[in-house]
């Protein structure tokens, strides 16, 4: 037979090495982990010290970092599914606000118990997301537009539910009070070391990793993002998959909203403003392609923590918020450039 090779003309790619991998592709695959390690090393080097102790590595400080990112992390996990299908969900921050308001008002003014409240709020998130997914697939609308509308709708609903007020959550036994166990979301377990919000994030990330990497559904998600038309022709239920991923982001945003209400004893329509952009940044830094078809949960988790660690070390050194924004911007651009380089090496981009 002909000695087929990768056409070196189409792209200056290495010529079909049997086992050899492009080092650049490897870097991108693990870019967020590498970034996390670099930020951690930088954190250790530049950390302020007190009596020789490196503040950055102080267990309390580590707990601060992973707690602070848990809400955006949960959202980023959901967002990873959507972005792998080459979609986007801008409504997540607003759905977080809606969920925190509904959580607070169900328990405080509605007199509902903890379990019914949590189940109802999670169901609300799923339904909200599924509606957005259905509108997007049924009318072939860009998810950008549909979820932009969803963002407005969720903020509006949150204001309606809250009656333009914020709702404080007080604890106790009786009407108008939330069960005290709910406040555990703002606490730390295991000898006051592990924030509960972080535990929720980690468990959700683990489940999501398993779903994405080992289930039929996960495979469908990659297929839809890899090439929607090809997936359809191969018999993948494309519309169902798309609706499902938006339901997942809705679920994630609702879960984050519950965690928010529990951590801050509070529900406000303004909660979670701008979280969608932080989550998207974490996903992209995690190596998931906005073009769809490629991505990793581990990357998203690492990207999330990396952004949190970066903000932490900058603040510990009293560096201005302006610099924090600029540093984040530089990292996003770097991540995107690395991805684009790999695409070009694969001869797929230009």
């Amino acid at each position, binding site marked *: *037979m*002909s*000695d*087929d*090779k*990768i*056409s*070196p*003309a*189409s792209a*200056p*790619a*290495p*010529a*079909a090495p*049997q*086992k050899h991998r492009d080092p650049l592709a490897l870097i991108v695959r693990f870019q967020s982990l590498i970034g996390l390690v670099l930020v951690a090393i930088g954190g250790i080097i530049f950390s302020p010290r007190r009596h020789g102790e490196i503040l950055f590595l102080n267990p309390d400080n580590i707990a601060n970092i992973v707690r602070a990112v848990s809400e955006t992390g949960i959202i980023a996990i959901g967002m990873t599914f959507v972005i792998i299908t080459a979609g986007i969900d801008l409504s997540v921050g607003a759905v977080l606000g809606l969920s925190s308001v509904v959580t607070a008002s169900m328990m405080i003014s509605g007199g509902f118990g903890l379990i019914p409240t949590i189940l109802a709020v999670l169901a609300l998130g799923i339904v909200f997301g599924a509606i957005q997914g259905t509108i997007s697939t049924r009318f072939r609308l860009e998810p950008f537009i549909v979820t932009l509308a969803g963002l407005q709708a969720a903020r509006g609903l949150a204001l309606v539910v809250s009656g333009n007020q914020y709702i404080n959550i007080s604890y106790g036994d009786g009407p108008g009070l939330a069960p005290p166990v709910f406040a555990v979301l703002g606490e730390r377990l295991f000898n006051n070391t592990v924030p509960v919000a972080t535990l929720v994030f980690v468990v959700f990330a683990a489940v999501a990793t398993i779903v994405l990497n*080992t*289930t*039929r*559904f*996960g*495979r*469908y998600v*990659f*297929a839809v993002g*890899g*090439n929607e*038309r*090809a*997936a*359809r*022709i*191969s*018999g*993948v*239920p494309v519309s169902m998959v798309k609706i499902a991923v938006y339901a997942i982001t809705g679920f994630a945003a609702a879960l984050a909203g519950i965690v928010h209400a529990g951590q801050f004893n509070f529900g406000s329509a303004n909660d979670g403003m701008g979280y969608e952009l932080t989550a998207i940044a974490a996903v992209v830094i995690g190596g998931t*392609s906005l*073009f769809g*078809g*490629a991505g990793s949960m581990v990357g998203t988790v690492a990207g999330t923590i990396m952004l949190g660690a970066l903000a932490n070390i900058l603040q510990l050194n009293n560096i201005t918020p302006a610099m924090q924004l600029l540093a984040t911007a530089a990292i996003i651009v770097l991540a995107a450039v690395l991805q684009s380089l790999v*695409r070009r090496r*694969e*001869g*797929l981009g230009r």
Partner: protein
Amino acid sequence: MTAPLLVMTGAVKRFGGVQALRGVDFDLKAGEIHALLGENGAGKSTLMNLLSGVYTPDEGTIEIDGKPVRFNNPREAQAAGIATIFQELDLVPSLDVAANLFLGRELMRPGGFLDVPAMRREAKKRLEAIEIAIDPAAMVADLSIGQRQVVAIVKALSYASRVLIMDEPTAALTVGEVERLFDIMRKLAATGVGIVYISHRLEEVPGIADRVTVMRDGRVAGITEPHAPQAELVRLLVGRPLDELYPARIKAAGKPLLSLKNASFKLARDSAGWQAPQGVSVDVHEGEIVGLAGIMGAGRTELLSALYGTGLSGRWEGEVAISGKPVKLDSISAARHAGIAFVTDDRRGSGLMLRMAVGLNLVMSVISRISPNWLVSPHRQAEAVKESFGQFDIRPKNPDIAVGALSGGNQQKVVLAKEILGNPRLLLLDEPTRGVDVGAKGEIYARLRALAAQGLGILVASSEMPELIGLCDRIVVLRQGRNVAEFMGGVDEHTVLAAANGREA
């Protein structure tokens, strides 16, 4: 013909450790059509990219009119009179023809306003100069692929080109369009333009080329006359004599599989340019390969996609049966349920997930089979991948690399293998060897015949007449959505063409 217009001597180009060109000599005379043949990876695209300034050679020289030149980018090559028409035409579909022709060099009125009438007039003049009737005000998106090709040529020539490089210009054209393109090329050559013509289609070479250069493994394998026997060209291309390109037919046709009797596809909404099947009667038996011939727009692709439910929405009327039982083919799931599989003519656009690994692509149509209990079984996946690699000689033999990095032929093998894995009873193929080199073609034909021998029915649409004639047991000719003639395989090409064009042979 006179002194060479362009001479390339001892060109070497390396990409990392890979030597794409290993010392190539090439020359082009004014007014000459010089065909450049080679399998994928033979180096012809690299050679083209050196001439058009995309890459600079590591060693060797390029001379124009005897003067050495060095291009650092495509702009410099253009300035020297070398224009290139790439396979993916660089036209903007949402602009009209005139706007595309003047893109970046718009004619202006005083005050910075576009002079649209002047551009349209000038565009019309240029199109008429090569006797082409395309409305300069038409949107490029509304033009056929063939018409777009012509626009791209006119655009390239408007840079006052002396050398025109065409990369597989006929890949997406119908027979009639190819003839018209060749006419234009001959006219251009007569005005003194030198044309480098890159193609996969051996059979086109004698009709158009003055000279043929065959490349293999980054070297020139030979320079021959265009009328050299095809076997000789194939030997140069592949490096050894190739046995018969088309496998022997096996009389194995069994029971009727697909039968369409006076079947029409009624569109939910009228759509211009989509030739829905109109009263088609076609049978495909088990073990039989049936070809669909016809000019562009005759409804070949539309018939296949209507059967598979991927085209426009609508419903079938008339008799549509699989194995004698009437079926309602209105969706992809209905078609798959009936045991139908489909391979599109656009493997990059709708066949493959290019960035994903070969293995993941292969199992795409059998995800449910490899994921009992909704969990993907790595073991079953590995078995399925192994089965595919057994069916088709996919190179490199590595399921973990991105499918987009494979050559066209190997990509096509992946698409086919993917659908075969699903154990279909009827396989619908649209242009199964478009952009595939000769070696891979032969292998694909052999596999298709072997699969048919096991009882698979195949319905294949192609614009390459020799492919239909060589591969198929029967050829059904479509015109305006209906079947107008039927021939046995091996029929004379002119007979089929005449039927396709509605003429007497």
